[in-house]
C-alpha cells in the first residue's frame, strides 16, 4: 500500500470519487488553476476541467449555497472554505439551509453536500488562520461534522462524506497536511461516519480526542505508559452525531476520562462529551471527567512564544494524565 501524507490522502479521495462518479465536483476559492492554497485540489482542474474544479469568487455563502443548489439537482458538490475561520459567512447556509432541507420538506428534498475546511493552529496563522470552529456546527440536527486524524481515515471518511445523503462539514487540521504519513489504499473505500476508533487500548484512563490532538494524545500516552499509566485513546472522528456507544464503553471500562481538544475549553465539544459520560456512566466514574483544551481566548497569537503557550502538546496532555491517574 502506498504511503501518503494526510493531504495526499484527501486529494486521492477527491480524485478517485471524481473519476468514478460524474456527479462529484469541487468548488471554492483558488481550488482550480492553483489547486488550493494548501494544494489539496492540485491537479483536479487539469484532470477534470474548469466545470468540475471551479474557482469561485470570495463569497462563502455563495459557494455553499451554490453547492446546495447543485445537490438539489442530484450532484455531489464538495465545497472548500479556504480556512475554517472563514466559514462564518456560510453558517446560515450550512445550518439554516443545508441541515434543514430534508427535515423541512418532510423528506421530499435532500442535500448531499460536503463542506471542507482546514482548521487549527501551529502554522503561525494567528487569530484568523488558526481557529477551531467546529463548535459552531455541533449543535445542529441534520448536519454531520467529521474530523479525520490519519491519512487512511482522511480518505475513507471523505469518500463516505461525499456519498452520504446529507450535508457533512469536514474539518482538516492543517498541521497534519504534510507532517503525517500513513498507508492509504489505492482504490475507493469508506470509513463509516458516526463511529469513533479506539487508537490505543488501555485500562486506566480514556482519552477522547480528534484531529491533531489525537497524535499528541498518543505521544502522551506512550510517555506515561513508561510510568505505568495505561491509557486508552479514542479518536472521535465524527463530532456530530457522536458515537456514544464507543465513548461510554471505553469509560465504563477505564472509569476515568480526559477529553482533549484544541478548540477553546468553554463551549467546545468537550462539554457535551463530559455531560454524556456524567449522565450515562456516572456509576462507573472514579474521578471527575477532565477537559484539556485551548485557553478561552480568541485563538492563538502570532507571537511564537504566545503561540506555543496557547497550544496543547504532549507534555501538557501527559501532565493531565498523571493528575488524573493520581486522583
Amino acid at each position, binding site marked *: 500500500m502506498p504511503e501518503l501524507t494526510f493531504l495526499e490522502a484527501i486529494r486521492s479521495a477527491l480524485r478517485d470519487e471524481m473519476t468514478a462518479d*460524474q456527479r462529484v*465536483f469541487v468548488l471554492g476559492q483558488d481550488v482550480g488553476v492553483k489547486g488550493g492554497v494548501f494544494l489539496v485540489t492540485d491537479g483536479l482542474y487539469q484532470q477534470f476541467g474548469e*466545470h*468540475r474544479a*471551479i474557482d*469561485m*469568487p470570495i*463569497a462563502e*455563502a*455563495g459557494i455553499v*449555497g*451554490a*453547492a*446546495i*443548489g*447543485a*445537490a*438539489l*439537482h*442530484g*450532484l455531489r*458538490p464538495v465545497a472548500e472554505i479556504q480556512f475554517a475561520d472563514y466559514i462564518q*459567512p456560510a453558517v*446560515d*447556509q450550512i445550518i*439554516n*439551509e443545508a441541515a*434543514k*432541507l*430534508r*427535515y*423541512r*420538506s*418532510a*423528506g*421530499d*428534498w*435532500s442535500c*448531499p453536500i460536503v463542506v471542507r475546511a482546514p482548521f487549527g493552529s501551529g502554522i503561525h496563522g494567528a487569530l484568523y488562520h488558526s481557529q477551531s470552529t467546529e463548535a459552531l456546527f455541533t449543535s445542529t*440536527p*441534520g448536519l*454531520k461534522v467529521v474530523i479525520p486524524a490519519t491519512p487512511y481515515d482522511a480518505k475513507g471518511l471523505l469518500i463516505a462524506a461525499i456519498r452520504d*445523503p*446529507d450535508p457533512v462539514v469536514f474539518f482538516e487540521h492543517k498541521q497534519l497536511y504534510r507532517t503525517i504519513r500513513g498507508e492509504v489504499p489505492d482504490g475507493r473505500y469508506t470509513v463509516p461516519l458516526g463511529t469513533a476508533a479506539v487508537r490505543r487500548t488501555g485500562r486506566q484512563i480514556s482519552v477522547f480526542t480528534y484531529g491533531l490532538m489525537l497524535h499528541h494524545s498518543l505521544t502522551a500516552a506512550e510517555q506515561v505508559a513508561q510510568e505505568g499509566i495505561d491509557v486508552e485513546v479514542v479518536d472521535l472522528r465524527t463530532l456530530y452525531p457522536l458515537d456514544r456507544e464507543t465513548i461510554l464503553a471505553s469509560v465504563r471500562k477505564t472509569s476515568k476520562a480526559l477529553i482533549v481538544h484544541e478548540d477553546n475549553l468553554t463551549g467546545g465539544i468537550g462539554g457535551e462529551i463530559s455531560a454524556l459520560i456524567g449522565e450515562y456512566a456516572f456509576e462507573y466514574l472514579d474521578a471527575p471527567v477532565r477537559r484539556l483544551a485551548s485557553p478561552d481566548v480568541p485563538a492563538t497569537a502570532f507571537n511564537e512564544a504566545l503561540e506555543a503557550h496557547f497550544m496543547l502538546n504532549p507534555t501538557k496532555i501527559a501532565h493531565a494524565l498523571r493528575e488524573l491517574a493520581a486522583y
Partner: protein
Amino acid sequence: MSMQTDTSLASLPINDPALPRHRQLGLSDEQVLAALAGMQRVRNVDDRLWQLSRQGKAHFVITSAGHEATQFGCAWAIRAGHDYSVPYYRDMALALALGQTPLDLLLHGMGKPTDPASGGRQMFGHFSSRALRIVSGSSSVGSHIVHAVGLALAFRITGEQDIAAITFFGEGATSEGAWHEGMTIAGVQQLPVVFVCENNGYAISVPAHREVPVRDVATKAAGYGMPGVIVDGTDIFAVYAAAHTAMQRARSGGGPTLIECKLHRLRPHSNADDHSKYRSPEELAALAQHDPIDKLRDYAILHGLLDAVQWQVLQQQIKAEVDAATLAADQVPDPPLESLYDHLYGA
C-alpha cells in the same frame, strides 16, 4: 449588459400589433381564462386563510394579493417539473400556477401532515414540491437565491441544455449579502438562471427608499453583468413577455437576467402586521386600483373571453371549490407524535 425598460419580444411567436396582446404573445384564450380563474382561486385561498387565522385554524398568513399577475405571468414561462422554481413566501399564486391545488395550500396553511410542502412542519408560505421542481425554502430572506444559482451551475456541469432555474424575491431581499453572492456567481459564470424581483415597495414596514439605494432594483443588474428589465408587475402579459424572453435566453446559453416587477402588496405583510401604522389612509385607499385580477378580468371581458355573468359564475364555482378544499383539509387528523423525528437524516 444594458438596462432595458422595454422587453424584446423577438423570441415570442407572433408579433402582429392588430391582435389582442395575449395572441401577440402566442397565448390562447383558454390560457388567459385559466390564468384569470387561477388568480381568482388563489385570492380565494388567501381570503380563506385570513378567515382561518381569525378562527385559530391557520396560525400564519402571508398574502400574495397584488402579486398574482407577476406570479402567473412567470408561471407561463416555466415548464413545471422541468425547469426549477425557487420561490419565496410571497409566492402562493406561483405555487398554484405551477400545479399545486387549493387543497395543497390549505393543508400547508393548516399545518397538516399531508401538507405536500413540508408535512406540516413549516409555517405557511414555504411552498415546495419535488415533482413540480418547486424548491423548499427557509424563512430567511434572500438565502434561497443562491440555490437557484447552484441549480443553474449543475446544468452547466452536466451539460444539460434547454433548462433553466428561476427564483423570486422581494426588493427587500436584494439588500442581503447572500443575494449579492448569488447574483455575482451567476454573472461571473453567465449561468442559466432568471431572477425575479417582486418589488412591492415595502419590506414589512420599511419603504423602499429606506432599504434600496436606487429607484429601480433593475439598476442593480448592471453590477452583475446581466440585463435588468423593469415591468409592470400587475400586467400579466408584460410579465410573461419578460419572463419568457429571459427564460429562453437562459435556456439557450444567453446567461442570467434580472426582472423587476413593480407591483403593490394589497394587504398587510402578514396576519401579524398592521399596515395602517406605516401606510397613509390615502395610500391604502389607492391600493384597490392596482389589483391585477381586476385588470385581467377587464381585459378578458373587453376581448370577449368571458362576460360579466360568466365571471360571477366562475367566482362562485371557485368559492365552492375552496369551501370544499377547506373542509377536506380541516378533517385531516394530526400526525403521529413520533413523526417529529422523521426525515432528520437519509438512509
